[in-house]
Protein backbone atom coordinates (compact mmCIF):
# COMPACT_ATOMS: atom_id res chain seq x y z
CA UNK A 1 0.00 0.00 0.00
CA UNK A 2 2.62 2.48 1.12
CA UNK A 3 5.00 1.28 -1.52
CA UNK A 4 2.44 1.87 -4.24
CA UNK A 5 1.84 5.33 -2.95
CA UNK A 6 5.57 6.02 -2.94
CA UNK A 7 5.91 4.90 -6.54
CA UNK A 8 3.05 7.13 -7.59
CA UNK A 9 4.58 10.02 -5.70
CA UNK A 10 7.94 9.55 -7.39
CA UNK A 11 6.39 9.29 -10.85
CA UNK A 12 4.45 12.50 -10.32
CA UNK A 13 7.56 14.26 -9.05
CA UNK A 14 9.62 13.08 -12.01
CA UNK A 15 6.95 14.13 -14.48
CA UNK A 16 6.67 17.55 -12.86
CA UNK A 17 10.43 18.09 -12.99
CA UNK A 18 10.60 17.05 -16.65
CA UNK A 19 7.73 19.34 -17.54
CA UNK A 20 9.40 22.22 -15.75
CA UNK A 21 12.70 21.51 -17.53
CA UNK A 22 10.88 21.42 -20.85
CA UNK A 23 9.17 24.71 -20.08
CA UNK A 24 12.48 26.39 -19.26
CA UNK A 25 13.98 24.92 -22.42
CA UNK A 26 11.21 26.36 -24.58
CA UNK A 27 11.78 29.81 -23.08
CA UNK A 28 15.55 29.50 -23.59
CA UNK A 29 15.07 28.44 -27.18
CA UNK A 30 12.86 31.45 -27.87
CA UNK A 31 15.61 33.73 -26.64
CA UNK A 32 17.90 32.02 -29.16
CA UNK A 33 20.08 29.98 -26.85
CA UNK A 34 21.74 26.92 -28.41
CA UNK A 35 20.54 23.36 -27.97
CA UNK A 36 23.72 22.33 -26.10
CA UNK A 37 22.65 24.58 -23.26
CA UNK A 38 19.13 23.27 -23.45
CA UNK A 39 20.51 19.78 -22.77
CA UNK A 40 22.17 21.24 -19.70
CA UNK A 41 18.72 22.17 -18.43
CA UNK A 42 17.69 18.53 -18.84
CA UNK A 43 20.78 17.33 -16.97
CA UNK A 44 19.78 19.51 -14.07
CA UNK A 45 16.30 18.01 -14.35
CA UNK A 46 17.64 14.44 -14.23
CA UNK A 47 19.79 15.23 -11.20
CA UNK A 48 16.80 16.78 -9.45
CA UNK A 49 14.79 13.64 -10.16
CA UNK A 50 17.51 11.48 -8.62
CA UNK A 51 17.54 13.68 -5.54
CA UNK A 52 13.75 13.72 -5.15
CA UNK A 53 13.19 9.99 -5.63
CA UNK A 54 14.91 6.86 -4.43
CA UNK A 55 16.90 4.32 -6.43
CA UNK A 56 18.44 4.40 -9.89
CA UNK A 57 15.30 3.80 -11.87
CA UNK A 58 13.69 7.22 -11.92
CA UNK A 59 16.89 9.05 -12.83
CA UNK A 60 17.63 6.65 -15.68
CA UNK A 61 14.08 6.77 -16.98
CA UNK A 62 14.14 10.55 -16.70
CA UNK A 63 17.35 10.68 -18.75
CA UNK A 64 15.91 8.53 -21.54
CA UNK A 65 12.67 10.51 -21.66
CA UNK A 66 14.67 13.75 -21.64
CA UNK A 67 16.62 12.60 -24.68
CA UNK A 68 13.46 11.64 -26.51
CA UNK A 69 11.76 14.94 -25.70
CA UNK A 70 14.89 16.85 -26.70
CA UNK A 71 15.08 14.92 -29.92
CA UNK A 72 11.45 15.54 -30.71
CA UNK A 73 11.19 19.22 -29.93
CA UNK A 74 14.61 20.73 -30.22
CA UNK A 75 16.56 18.99 -33.02
CA UNK A 76 16.07 19.37 -36.75
CA UNK A 77 13.80 18.00 -38.12
CA UNK A 78 11.44 19.31 -35.45
CA UNK A 79 8.55 17.17 -34.16
CA UNK A 80 10.02 13.87 -35.30
CA UNK A 81 12.35 11.38 -33.71
CA UNK A 82 14.54 11.43 -36.80
CA UNK A 83 18.06 12.82 -36.47
CA UNK A 84 19.77 14.59 -39.37
CA UNK A 85 22.84 16.05 -37.73
CA UNK A 86 25.61 13.73 -36.52
CA UNK A 87 26.48 16.29 -33.87
CA UNK A 88 23.12 15.72 -32.32
CA UNK A 89 23.75 11.99 -32.02
CA UNK A 90 27.04 12.60 -30.21
CA UNK A 91 25.41 15.25 -28.05
CA UNK A 92 22.62 12.97 -26.98
CA UNK A 93 24.91 10.02 -26.39
CA UNK A 94 27.08 12.10 -24.10
CA UNK A 95 24.03 13.51 -22.41
CA UNK A 96 22.82 10.03 -21.59
CA UNK A 97 26.21 8.98 -20.26
CA UNK A 98 26.56 12.08 -18.13
CA UNK A 99 23.04 11.72 -16.80
CA UNK A 100 23.51 8.04 -15.89
CA UNK A 101 26.86 8.61 -14.19
CA UNK A 102 25.65 11.66 -12.28
CA UNK A 103 22.49 10.01 -11.10
CA UNK A 104 24.23 6.83 -10.01
CA UNK A 105 26.78 8.89 -8.09
CA UNK A 106 23.98 10.76 -6.38
CA UNK A 107 22.27 7.54 -5.38
CA UNK A 108 25.50 6.11 -4.05
CA UNK A 109 26.19 9.27 -2.13
CA UNK A 110 22.77 9.12 -0.55
CA UNK A 111 23.23 5.49 0.50
CA UNK A 112 26.49 6.48 2.17
CA UNK A 113 24.73 9.32 3.98
CA UNK A 114 22.07 6.95 5.26
CA UNK A 115 24.64 4.49 6.52
CA UNK A 116 26.43 7.30 8.29
CA UNK A 117 23.19 8.40 9.94
CA UNK A 118 22.38 4.88 11.08
CA UNK A 119 25.84 4.49 12.52
CA UNK A 120 25.39 7.74 14.38
CA UNK A 121 22.08 6.59 15.86
CA UNK A 122 23.65 3.27 16.72
CA UNK A 123 26.50 5.04 18.45
CA UNK A 124 24.07 7.20 20.37
CA UNK A 125 22.23 4.08 21.56
CA UNK A 126 25.52 2.47 22.52
CA UNK A 127 26.51 5.58 24.41
CA UNK A 128 23.23 5.59 26.33
CA UNK A 129 23.56 1.91 27.05
CA UNK A 130 27.07 2.19 28.36
CA UNK A 131 26.25 5.20 30.48
CA UNK A 132 23.32 3.23 31.87
CA UNK A 133 25.57 0.30 32.66
CA UNK A 134 28.18 2.58 34.19
CA UNK A 135 25.71 4.29 36.44
CA UNK A 136 24.06 0.99 37.32
CA UNK A 137 27.29 -0.65 38.31
CA UNK A 138 28.31 2.43 40.23
CA UNK A 139 25.02 2.75 42.05
CA UNK A 140 24.78 -0.95 42.72
CA UNK A 141 28.20 -1.03 44.23
CA UNK A 142 27.28 1.43 46.96
CA UNK A 143 24.43 -0.53 48.57
CA UNK A 144 26.30 -3.78 47.97
CA UNK A 145 29.24 -2.41 49.88
CA UNK A 146 26.85 -1.45 52.64
CA UNK A 147 25.31 -4.90 52.72
CA UNK A 148 28.69 -6.62 52.76
CA UNK A 149 29.87 -4.36 55.55
CA UNK A 150 26.76 -4.95 57.65
CA UNK A 151 27.05 -8.71 57.12
CA UNK A 152 30.69 -8.63 58.21
CA UNK A 153 29.68 -6.86 61.40
CA UNK A 154 26.84 -9.28 62.04
CA UNK A 155 28.89 -12.41 61.50
CA UNK A 156 31.19 -11.66 64.40
CA UNK A 157 28.14 -10.83 66.42
CA UNK A 158 29.81 -11.62 69.71
CA UNK A 159 30.25 -8.05 70.85
CA UNK A 160 27.01 -6.65 69.42
CA UNK A 161 23.90 -6.14 71.47
CA UNK A 162 20.48 -7.02 70.08
CA UNK A 163 19.60 -3.41 69.33
CA UNK A 164 22.65 -2.92 67.13
CA UNK A 165 22.08 -6.21 65.36
CA UNK A 166 18.50 -5.25 64.59
CA UNK A 167 19.70 -1.96 63.26
CA UNK A 168 22.24 -3.64 60.98
CA UNK A 169 19.64 -6.08 59.72
CA UNK A 170 17.30 -3.17 59.04
CA UNK A 171 20.03 -1.45 57.04
CA UNK A 172 20.62 -4.56 54.99
CA UNK A 173 16.92 -4.84 54.28
CA UNK A 174 16.65 -1.21 53.22
CA UNK A 175 19.55 -1.51 50.84
CA UNK A 176 18.27 -4.77 49.41
CA UNK A 177 14.85 -3.23 48.80
CA UNK A 178 16.54 -0.37 47.03
CA UNK A 179 18.43 -2.78 44.80
CA UNK A 180 15.25 -4.67 44.08
CA UNK A 181 13.49 -1.51 42.95
CA UNK A 182 16.39 -0.67 40.70
CA UNK A 183 16.17 -4.07 39.08
CA UNK A 184 12.44 -3.61 38.48
CA UNK A 185 13.06 -0.24 36.87
CA UNK A 186 15.85 -1.51 34.68
CA UNK A 187 13.65 -4.40 33.57
CA UNK A 188 10.90 -1.98 32.61
CA UNK A 189 13.38 0.14 30.73
CA UNK A 190 14.66 -2.75 28.65
CA UNK A 191 11.06 -3.77 28.02
CA UNK A 192 10.31 -0.35 26.59
CA UNK A 193 13.55 -0.16 24.66
CA UNK A 194 12.79 -3.40 22.91
CA UNK A 195 9.64 -1.84 21.53
CA UNK A 196 5.92 -1.58 22.04
CA UNK A 197 5.64 -5.25 21.24
CA UNK A 198 6.17 -6.10 24.87
CA UNK A 199 3.50 -3.80 26.17
CA UNK A 200 0.45 -5.95 26.69
CA UNK A 201 -2.56 -3.72 27.10
CA UNK A 202 -5.60 -4.93 28.96
CA UNK A 203 -8.47 -2.93 30.35
CA UNK A 204 -7.65 -2.18 33.98
CA UNK A 205 -9.71 -0.44 36.62
CA UNK A 206 -7.90 2.60 37.96
CA UNK A 207 -8.70 1.72 41.61
CA UNK A 208 -6.69 -1.51 41.35
CA UNK A 209 -3.64 0.15 39.93
CA UNK A 210 -3.48 2.75 42.65
CA UNK A 211 -4.01 0.19 45.39
CA UNK A 212 -1.31 -2.06 44.00
CA UNK A 213 1.16 0.79 43.70
CA UNK A 214 0.45 2.13 47.18
CA UNK A 215 1.08 -1.24 48.83
CA UNK A 216 4.49 -1.41 47.22
CA UNK A 217 5.73 1.90 48.55
CA UNK A 218 7.09 1.19 51.99
CA UNK A 219 6.34 3.87 54.53
CA UNK A 220 3.71 5.57 52.40
CA UNK A 221 0.75 4.89 54.65
CA UNK A 222 2.50 4.93 58.02
CA UNK A 223 5.11 7.66 57.65
CA UNK A 224 3.12 10.10 55.50
CA UNK A 225 -0.47 11.26 55.26
CA UNK A 226 -1.54 9.48 52.10
CA UNK A 227 -4.87 10.31 50.51
CA UNK A 228 -6.56 9.05 47.37
CA UNK A 229 -9.43 10.78 45.58
CA UNK A 230 -11.29 8.79 42.94
CA UNK A 231 -14.09 9.87 40.64
CA UNK A 232 -17.62 8.68 41.48
CA UNK A 233 -17.86 6.47 38.40
CA UNK A 234 -15.44 3.65 37.67
CA UNK A 235 -12.73 4.47 35.15
CA UNK A 236 -11.26 1.77 32.93
CA UNK A 237 -8.18 2.33 30.79
CA UNK A 238 -6.34 -0.05 28.49
CA UNK A 239 -2.83 -0.46 29.85
CA UNK A 240 -0.06 -2.81 30.80
CA UNK A 241 -1.05 -3.04 34.45
CA UNK A 242 2.37 -3.99 35.77
CA UNK A 243 4.06 -1.11 34.01
CA UNK A 244 1.49 1.46 35.02
CA UNK A 245 1.83 0.31 38.62
CA UNK A 246 5.55 0.90 38.18
CA UNK A 247 4.87 4.46 37.02
CA UNK A 248 2.80 5.20 40.11
CA UNK A 249 5.32 3.49 42.39
CA UNK A 250 8.07 5.67 40.95
CA UNK A 251 6.01 8.84 41.37
CA UNK A 252 4.99 7.92 44.92
CA UNK A 253 8.53 6.92 45.82
CA UNK A 254 9.68 10.24 44.52
CA UNK A 255 7.07 12.07 46.57
CA UNK A 256 8.12 10.09 49.63
CA UNK A 257 11.75 10.89 49.02
CA UNK A 258 11.12 14.61 48.78
CA UNK A 259 8.82 15.01 51.77
CA UNK A 260 9.51 14.88 55.47
CA UNK A 261 7.96 12.51 57.94
CA UNK A 262 4.29 13.37 58.41
CA UNK A 263 4.14 15.15 55.05
CA UNK A 264 1.09 14.87 52.86
CA UNK A 265 0.94 12.92 49.59
CA UNK A 266 -2.24 12.81 47.54
CA UNK A 267 -3.30 11.00 44.41
CA UNK A 268 -6.25 12.54 42.62
CA UNK A 269 -7.87 10.80 39.68
CA UNK A 270 -10.15 12.77 37.40
CA UNK A 271 -11.88 11.92 34.18
CA UNK A 272 -12.53 14.31 31.31
CA UNK A 273 -13.05 13.92 27.59
CA UNK A 274 -12.19 10.22 27.39
CA UNK A 275 -9.00 10.73 29.32
CA UNK A 276 -8.09 9.76 32.85
CA UNK A 277 -5.77 12.14 34.69
CA UNK A 278 -3.57 10.92 37.53
CA UNK A 279 -2.26 13.70 39.70
CA UNK A 280 0.36 12.92 42.34
CA UNK A 281 1.04 15.82 44.69
CA UNK A 282 3.22 16.31 47.71
CA UNK A 283 4.00 19.14 50.08
CA UNK A 284 7.73 18.59 50.04
CA UNK A 285 10.51 20.73 48.70
CA UNK A 286 9.38 20.73 45.08
CA UNK A 287 11.41 20.39 41.92
CA UNK A 288 14.68 22.28 41.92
CA UNK A 289 14.95 25.00 39.28
CA UNK A 290 18.13 23.60 37.79
CA UNK A 291 16.63 20.20 36.93
CA UNK A 292 13.14 21.41 36.13
CA UNK A 293 13.43 21.22 32.36
CA UNK A 294 15.00 17.79 32.46
CA UNK A 295 13.34 15.88 35.30
CA UNK A 296 12.19 13.22 32.86
CA UNK A 297 15.60 12.71 31.26
CA UNK A 298 17.61 9.63 32.08
CA UNK A 299 20.26 9.93 34.77
CA UNK A 300 19.04 13.26 36.08
CA UNK A 301 18.74 13.00 39.81
CA UNK A 302 19.04 15.25 42.75
CA UNK A 303 20.70 14.01 45.84
CA UNK A 304 20.10 16.56 48.52
CA UNK A 305 21.54 14.46 51.30
CA UNK A 306 18.26 13.72 53.05
CA UNK A 307 18.89 11.67 56.15
CA UNK A 308 17.04 8.64 54.76
CA UNK A 309 20.18 8.10 52.74
CA UNK A 310 18.10 8.21 49.58
CA UNK A 311 19.76 8.06 46.25
CA UNK A 312 18.75 7.38 42.72
CA UNK A 313 20.25 7.06 39.34
CA UNK A 314 17.46 9.09 37.82
CA UNK A 315 15.84 6.28 35.96
CA UNK A 316 12.47 6.38 37.69
CA UNK A 317 10.95 9.41 36.03
CA UNK A 318 12.49 8.55 32.67
CA UNK A 319 10.61 5.26 32.88
CA UNK A 320 7.40 7.04 33.84
CA UNK A 321 7.67 9.19 30.76
CA UNK A 322 8.54 6.30 28.48
CA UNK A 323 5.72 4.10 29.78
CA UNK A 324 3.09 6.84 29.67
CA UNK A 325 4.09 7.83 26.15
CA UNK A 326 4.16 4.22 25.02
CA UNK A 327 0.51 4.15 26.12
CA UNK A 328 -0.27 7.23 24.04
CA UNK A 329 -0.47 9.55 27.04
CA UNK A 330 1.56 12.45 28.36
CA UNK A 331 3.21 13.36 31.64
CA UNK A 332 4.02 16.77 33.12
CA UNK A 333 5.74 18.02 36.21
CA UNK A 334 5.35 21.33 37.98
CA UNK A 335 5.73 22.95 41.35
CA UNK A 336 2.61 23.74 43.31
CA UNK A 337 1.96 27.32 44.28
CA UNK A 338 1.55 26.29 47.90
CA UNK A 339 4.84 24.36 47.81
CA UNK A 340 5.72 20.82 46.79
CA UNK A 341 5.67 19.08 43.47
CA UNK A 342 2.85 17.96 41.22
CA UNK A 343 3.14 15.23 38.61
CA UNK A 344 0.24 14.72 36.23
CA UNK A 345 -0.18 12.14 33.53
CA UNK A 346 -3.12 11.14 31.39
CA UNK A 347 -4.15 8.05 29.47
CA UNK A 348 -7.01 7.34 27.12
CA UNK A 349 -9.83 5.83 29.12
CA UNK A 350 -13.53 5.39 29.48
CA UNK A 351 -16.03 5.59 32.26
CA UNK A 352 -18.28 2.63 32.83
CA UNK A 353 -21.62 2.05 34.45
CA UNK A 354 -20.98 -0.45 37.19
CA UNK A 355 -24.43 -1.91 37.65
CA UNK A 356 -23.11 -5.43 37.47
CA UNK A 357 -25.37 -7.10 34.96
Amino acid at each position, binding site marked *: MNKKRDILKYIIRSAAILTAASGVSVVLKRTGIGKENILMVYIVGVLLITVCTSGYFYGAAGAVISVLVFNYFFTVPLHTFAIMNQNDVVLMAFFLMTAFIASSLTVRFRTQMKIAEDTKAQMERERLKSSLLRSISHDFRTPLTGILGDCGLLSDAGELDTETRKELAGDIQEQ*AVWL*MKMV*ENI*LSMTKIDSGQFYIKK*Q*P*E*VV*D*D*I*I*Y*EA*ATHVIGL*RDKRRFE*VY*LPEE*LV*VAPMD*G*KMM*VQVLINLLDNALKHTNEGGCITVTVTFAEQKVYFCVEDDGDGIAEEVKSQVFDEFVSRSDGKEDGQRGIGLGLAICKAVVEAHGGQIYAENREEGGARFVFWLNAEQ*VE*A*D*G*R
Partner: protein
Amino acid sequence: MDDKKYILIVEDDKYIINFISMSLKKENYGYYVAKSVEEALSLFYANRPDIVILDLGLPDGDGIEVLRTIREISQIPVIVVSARQEEQQKIQALDMGADDYVTKPFYMGELLARIRVGLRKSLIIQNENPEKVYQFDYLCVDREKHLVTVDEKEIHLTPMEYKILNLLIDNRGKVLTHNYILSEIWGSSQGVESGNLRVFMAALRRKIEKEPTNPRFILTEVGVGYRFKE
Protein backbone atom coordinates in the same frame (compact mmCIF):
# COMPACT_ATOMS: atom_id res chain seq x y z
CA MET B 1 0.21 -38.12 67.82
CA ASP B 2 2.66 -35.96 65.99
CA ASP B 3 0.80 -32.90 64.79
CA LYS B 4 3.88 -31.22 63.43
CA LYS B 5 3.28 -29.98 59.91
CA TYR B 6 5.66 -31.04 57.17
CA ILE B 7 6.55 -28.83 54.26
CA LEU B 8 8.18 -29.87 51.00
CA ILE B 9 10.51 -27.17 49.67
CA VAL B 10 11.22 -27.52 45.96
CA GLU B 11 13.96 -25.04 45.16
CA ASP B 12 17.39 -25.22 43.57
CA ASP B 13 19.09 -22.14 45.00
CA LYS B 14 21.04 -23.05 48.11
CA TYR B 15 20.79 -19.61 49.71
CA ILE B 16 17.05 -19.53 49.37
CA ILE B 17 16.77 -23.10 50.68
CA ASN B 18 18.90 -22.03 53.59
CA PHE B 19 16.82 -19.12 54.78
CA ILE B 20 13.50 -20.79 54.10
CA SER B 21 14.49 -23.89 56.03
CA MET B 22 15.92 -21.84 58.88
CA SER B 23 12.73 -19.82 59.15
CA LEU B 24 10.58 -22.97 59.01
CA LYS B 25 12.61 -24.61 61.72
CA LYS B 26 12.17 -21.54 63.87
CA GLU B 27 8.40 -21.72 63.36
CA ASN B 28 8.53 -25.38 64.36
CA TYR B 29 7.59 -26.86 61.01
CA GLY B 30 9.26 -29.97 59.64
CA TYR B 31 10.59 -29.81 56.11
CA TYR B 32 12.03 -31.77 53.19
CA VAL B 33 14.19 -30.20 50.52
CA ALA B 34 14.08 -31.20 46.86
CA LYS B 35 16.37 -29.62 44.30
CA SER B 36 14.90 -31.08 41.14
CA VAL B 37 11.64 -32.28 39.62
CA GLU B 38 12.64 -35.90 40.13
CA GLU B 39 13.63 -35.46 43.74
CA ALA B 40 10.48 -33.45 44.42
CA LEU B 41 8.23 -36.23 43.15
CA SER B 42 9.98 -39.02 45.03
CA LEU B 43 9.97 -36.99 48.26
CA PHE B 44 6.34 -36.17 47.73
CA TYR B 45 5.34 -39.82 47.26
CA ALA B 46 7.50 -41.00 50.14
CA ASN B 47 6.51 -38.46 52.76
CA ARG B 48 3.15 -36.95 51.82
CA PRO B 49 3.88 -33.44 53.13
CA ASP B 50 1.12 -31.09 54.30
CA ILE B 51 2.06 -28.29 51.96
CA VAL B 52 4.44 -27.72 49.04
CA ILE B 53 6.52 -24.65 48.26
CA LEU B 54 7.34 -24.93 44.59
CA ASP B 55 9.90 -22.97 42.59
CA LEU B 56 9.07 -22.97 38.88
CA GLY B 57 12.56 -22.78 37.43
CA LEU B 58 14.26 -26.10 38.22
CA PRO B 59 17.44 -27.53 36.71
CA ASP B 60 15.88 -30.66 35.22
CA GLY B 61 12.55 -29.24 34.12
CA ASP B 62 9.58 -27.07 34.91
CA GLY B 63 8.02 -26.93 38.36
CA ILE B 64 4.69 -27.12 36.54
CA GLU B 65 5.37 -30.83 36.00
CA VAL B 66 5.61 -31.34 39.74
CA LEU B 67 2.33 -29.51 40.21
CA ARG B 68 0.61 -31.59 37.52
CA THR B 69 1.70 -34.85 39.11
CA ILE B 70 0.72 -33.75 42.60
CA ARG B 71 -2.71 -32.62 41.44
CA GLU B 72 -3.39 -36.00 39.90
CA ILE B 73 -3.53 -37.57 43.31
CA SER B 74 -3.81 -34.85 45.93
CA GLN B 75 -5.42 -31.49 46.72
CA ILE B 76 -2.77 -30.37 49.22
CA PRO B 77 -1.93 -26.68 49.13
CA VAL B 78 0.83 -25.70 46.71
CA ILE B 79 2.46 -22.28 46.90
CA VAL B 80 4.34 -21.33 43.76
CA VAL B 81 7.52 -19.27 43.96
CA SER B 82 8.42 -17.52 40.75
CA ALA B 83 10.78 -14.94 39.40
CA ARG B 84 9.31 -12.06 37.50
CA GLN B 85 10.25 -13.41 34.07
CA GLU B 86 8.07 -16.41 34.73
CA GLU B 87 4.87 -14.34 34.77
CA GLN B 88 3.03 -16.44 32.23
CA GLN B 89 4.02 -19.68 33.93
CA LYS B 90 2.74 -18.30 37.20
CA ILE B 91 -0.74 -17.80 35.77
CA GLN B 92 -0.54 -21.22 34.15
CA ALA B 93 0.37 -22.75 37.50
CA LEU B 94 -2.57 -21.06 39.23
CA ASP B 95 -4.92 -22.21 36.49
CA MET B 96 -3.60 -25.71 36.98
CA GLY B 97 -4.51 -25.71 40.62
CA ALA B 98 -1.74 -23.99 42.55
CA ASP B 99 -3.20 -22.21 45.55
CA ASP B 100 -1.03 -19.17 45.84
CA TYR B 101 2.15 -17.59 44.61
CA VAL B 102 4.94 -15.36 45.83
CA THR B 103 7.25 -13.51 43.50
CA LYS B 104 10.98 -13.33 44.08
CA PRO B 105 12.22 -11.43 45.92
CA PHE B 106 9.82 -12.04 48.78
CA TYR B 107 9.91 -11.51 52.51
CA MET B 108 9.91 -14.61 54.65
CA GLY B 109 7.13 -13.10 56.76
CA GLU B 110 4.94 -13.03 53.69
CA LEU B 111 5.69 -16.63 52.78
CA LEU B 112 4.99 -17.77 56.34
CA ALA B 113 1.63 -16.00 56.30
CA ARG B 114 0.73 -17.78 53.06
CA ILE B 115 1.81 -21.09 54.53
CA ARG B 116 -0.51 -20.52 57.50
CA VAL B 117 -3.40 -19.69 55.16
CA GLY B 118 -2.63 -22.81 53.13
CA LEU B 119 -2.54 -25.08 56.17
CA ARG B 120 -5.81 -23.64 57.47
CA LYS B 121 -7.32 -24.34 54.07
CA SER B 122 -6.26 -27.96 54.20
CA LEU B 123 -8.09 -28.22 57.54
CA ILE B 124 -11.23 -26.83 55.91
CA ILE B 125 -10.96 -29.45 53.18
CA GLN B 126 -10.72 -32.17 55.79
CA ASN B 127 -13.94 -31.30 57.54
CA GLU B 128 -15.94 -30.18 54.55
CA ASN B 129 -19.00 -28.61 56.08
CA PRO B 130 -20.36 -25.64 54.17
CA GLU B 131 -21.45 -22.93 56.48
CA LYS B 132 -24.58 -20.90 56.00
CA VAL B 133 -23.37 -17.65 57.48
CA TYR B 134 -19.93 -16.17 56.98
CA GLN B 135 -18.66 -13.41 59.19
CA PHE B 136 -15.44 -11.67 58.26
CA ASP B 137 -14.59 -8.65 60.32
CA TYR B 138 -17.38 -6.17 59.47
CA LEU B 139 -18.66 -8.14 56.49
CA CYS B 140 -21.38 -10.74 56.88
CA VAL B 141 -22.75 -13.01 54.16
CA ASP B 142 -25.85 -15.03 54.97
CA ARG B 143 -26.32 -17.54 52.20
CA GLU B 144 -29.66 -18.80 53.45
CA LYS B 145 -31.28 -15.38 53.46
CA HIS B 146 -29.24 -14.10 50.51
CA LEU B 147 -28.19 -11.24 52.68
CA VAL B 148 -24.95 -9.26 52.67
CA THR B 149 -24.31 -6.76 55.41
CA VAL B 150 -21.50 -4.35 56.16
CA ASP B 151 -21.50 -3.20 59.78
CA GLU B 152 -24.97 -4.77 60.07
CA LYS B 153 -26.30 -2.53 57.31
CA GLU B 154 -27.73 -4.37 54.35
CA ILE B 155 -25.83 -3.96 51.10
CA HIS B 156 -27.55 -4.37 47.78
CA LEU B 157 -25.55 -6.54 45.41
CA THR B 158 -26.54 -7.44 41.87
CA PRO B 159 -26.91 -11.20 41.20
CA MET B 160 -23.58 -11.21 39.38
CA GLU B 161 -21.78 -9.46 42.22
CA TYR B 162 -23.30 -11.86 44.73
CA LYS B 163 -22.14 -14.82 42.68
CA ILE B 164 -18.59 -13.48 42.43
CA LEU B 165 -18.47 -12.71 46.15
CA ASN B 166 -19.49 -16.25 47.02
CA LEU B 167 -16.95 -17.72 44.64
CA LEU B 168 -14.27 -15.63 46.32
CA ILE B 169 -15.40 -16.65 49.79
CA ASP B 170 -15.42 -20.34 48.87
CA ASN B 171 -11.83 -19.98 47.73
CA ARG B 172 -10.71 -17.53 50.37
CA GLY B 173 -6.96 -17.19 50.74
CA LYS B 174 -6.42 -18.54 47.28
CA VAL B 175 -5.49 -16.52 44.23
CA LEU B 176 -8.15 -16.90 41.57
CA THR B 177 -7.02 -16.06 38.05
CA HIS B 178 -9.16 -13.98 35.71
CA ASN B 179 -9.69 -17.05 33.54
CA TYR B 180 -10.84 -19.15 36.45
CA ILE B 181 -13.37 -16.59 37.66
CA LEU B 182 -14.66 -16.00 34.15
CA SER B 183 -15.20 -19.67 33.50
CA GLU B 184 -16.82 -20.20 36.92
CA ILE B 185 -19.20 -17.26 36.65
CA TRP B 186 -19.95 -17.08 32.94
CA GLY B 187 -19.39 -20.74 32.21
CA SER B 188 -16.58 -19.97 29.81
CA SER B 189 -13.79 -17.49 29.53
CA GLN B 190 -14.44 -17.22 25.80
CA GLY B 191 -16.22 -14.16 24.56
CA VAL B 192 -16.29 -12.40 27.91
CA GLU B 193 -13.75 -9.65 28.19
CA SER B 194 -11.64 -9.75 31.28
CA GLY B 195 -12.15 -5.98 31.37
CA ASN B 196 -15.76 -6.64 32.34
CA LEU B 197 -14.64 -8.75 35.25
CA ARG B 198 -12.41 -5.98 36.49
CA VAL B 199 -15.34 -3.61 36.40
CA PHE B 200 -17.54 -6.02 38.39
CA MET B 201 -14.78 -6.51 40.92
CA ALA B 202 -14.20 -2.81 41.35
CA ALA B 203 -17.94 -2.22 41.74
CA LEU B 204 -18.22 -5.05 44.27
CA ARG B 205 -15.25 -3.71 46.14
CA ARG B 206 -16.75 -0.25 46.33
CA LYS B 207 -19.84 -1.78 47.93
CA ILE B 208 -18.23 -4.00 50.56
CA GLU B 209 -14.96 -2.24 51.30
CA LYS B 210 -14.82 0.75 53.58
CA GLU B 211 -11.69 2.02 51.84
CA PRO B 212 -11.78 0.83 48.21
CA THR B 213 -8.23 1.97 47.52
CA ASN B 214 -6.94 0.13 50.57
CA PRO B 215 -9.12 -2.96 50.47
CA ARG B 216 -9.62 -5.20 53.46
CA PHE B 217 -11.13 -8.21 51.68
CA ILE B 218 -10.75 -8.28 47.92
CA LEU B 219 -7.10 -7.97 46.97
CA THR B 220 -6.07 -7.47 43.37
CA GLU B 221 -3.08 -9.35 42.01
CA VAL B 222 -2.41 -7.09 39.03
CA GLY B 223 -2.13 -9.03 35.79
CA VAL B 224 -3.09 -12.29 37.53
CA GLY B 225 -6.39 -12.22 39.37
CA TYR B 226 -7.96 -11.72 42.80
CA ARG B 227 -7.73 -13.07 46.31
CA PHE B 228 -10.20 -12.90 49.17
CA LYS B 229 -8.55 -12.21 52.48
CA GLU B 230 -10.27 -13.46 55.61
